[in-house]
């Protein structure tokens, strides 16, 4: 009797630990099952005022955790032609933003989703567009173009917060998705 109870307890415990890991999508693909400090579906929110001001004036202040350090290094060394725009900074500001980006990049973040971004990127590759990373493409591969690029209220995959209503707070949870003109999105 004691034995049965002990075995049941063990089975129950194993089930309890593994079910959430199996349940959450794509863990097998982008390397799950590991312990991260933050199991949330988000990434660290951007709170730095200099970063918000300098990078967030023209576009959403993307979380540094969405690209690896190599990408940010490349980005910051070419600000005079930043996706066709001049985004030059004075030396001091450039240095402080680079430091912030590198310290919080995808490869240094302990947020689960940041790790997935990082794992999807090939070694030695330094993509400049978050929307071109393999993990991003995989996560958005079922979304028809008419909802994003063909949607006048969205127009581009780079406008995270057009659909991810809490993107600026670092949350990319499915429950927070509202596609303008279409509403909720359930994977």
């Amino acid at each position, binding site marked *: 009797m004691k034995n049965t109870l002990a075995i049941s307890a063990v089975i129950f415990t194993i089930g309890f630990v593994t079910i959430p890991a199996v349940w959450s999508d794509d863990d097998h693909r982008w390397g799950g099952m590991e312990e991260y400090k933050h199991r949330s579906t988000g990434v660290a929110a951007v709170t730095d005022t200099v970063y918000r001001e300098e990078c967030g*004036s*023209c*576009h*959403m202040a993307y979380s540094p955790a969405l690209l690896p350090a190599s990408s940010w290094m490349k980005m910051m060394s070419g600000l005079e032609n930043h*996706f*066709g*725009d*001049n*985004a*030059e*900074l*004075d030396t001091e500001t450039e240095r402080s933003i680079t430091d912030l980006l590198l310290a919080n990049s995808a490869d240094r973040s302990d947020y689960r989703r940041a790790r997935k971004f990082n794992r999807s990127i090939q070694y030695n590759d330094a993509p400049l567009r978050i929307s071109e990373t393999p993990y991003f493409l995989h996560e958005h591969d079922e979304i028809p173009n008419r909802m994003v690029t063909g949607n006048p209220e969205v*127009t581009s995959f*780079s*406008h995270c917060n057009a659909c991810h209503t809490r993107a600026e707070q670092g949350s990319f949870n499915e429950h927070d998705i509202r596609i303008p003109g279409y509403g909720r999105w359930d994977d």
Partner: protein
Amino acid sequence: MKTPYMIFVVLVSTPAHSVLAENTAIDTLLQSYASQGATEVDAEQGKHLWQKTFQSNSEFAERRCASCHTEDLTAPGKHIKTSKLIEPMAPSVNPQRLTDQKKIEKWFKRNCTWTMGRECTVQEKADFLLYLNK
């Protein structure tokens, strides 16, 4: 008799003082541009340049200040590429505008380069400041 008079002076001069304080950045920059060769600063000239169209070989072939800021300085604009909202340029409706020298110079450098394909001259910057300060 003297005390009410003093109160009157304080009340009247306080708003004027704060307006002056807000414009320090513009005054300082205008003086600096003058010392670098800007003469006969003209708001009309600034307006003309603000509305002028420039050609580019890259994305968005026709570029103007109004491409993002709109013609109306008191209205909010929209970034032509990212669609991000841009607060109005006129300090009369957006008191934060034109109060920070460093910021003014940063945006002159970035936006003159994007729009005109080169940095603005001190004369052009002085004309712009006078035109924008509405």
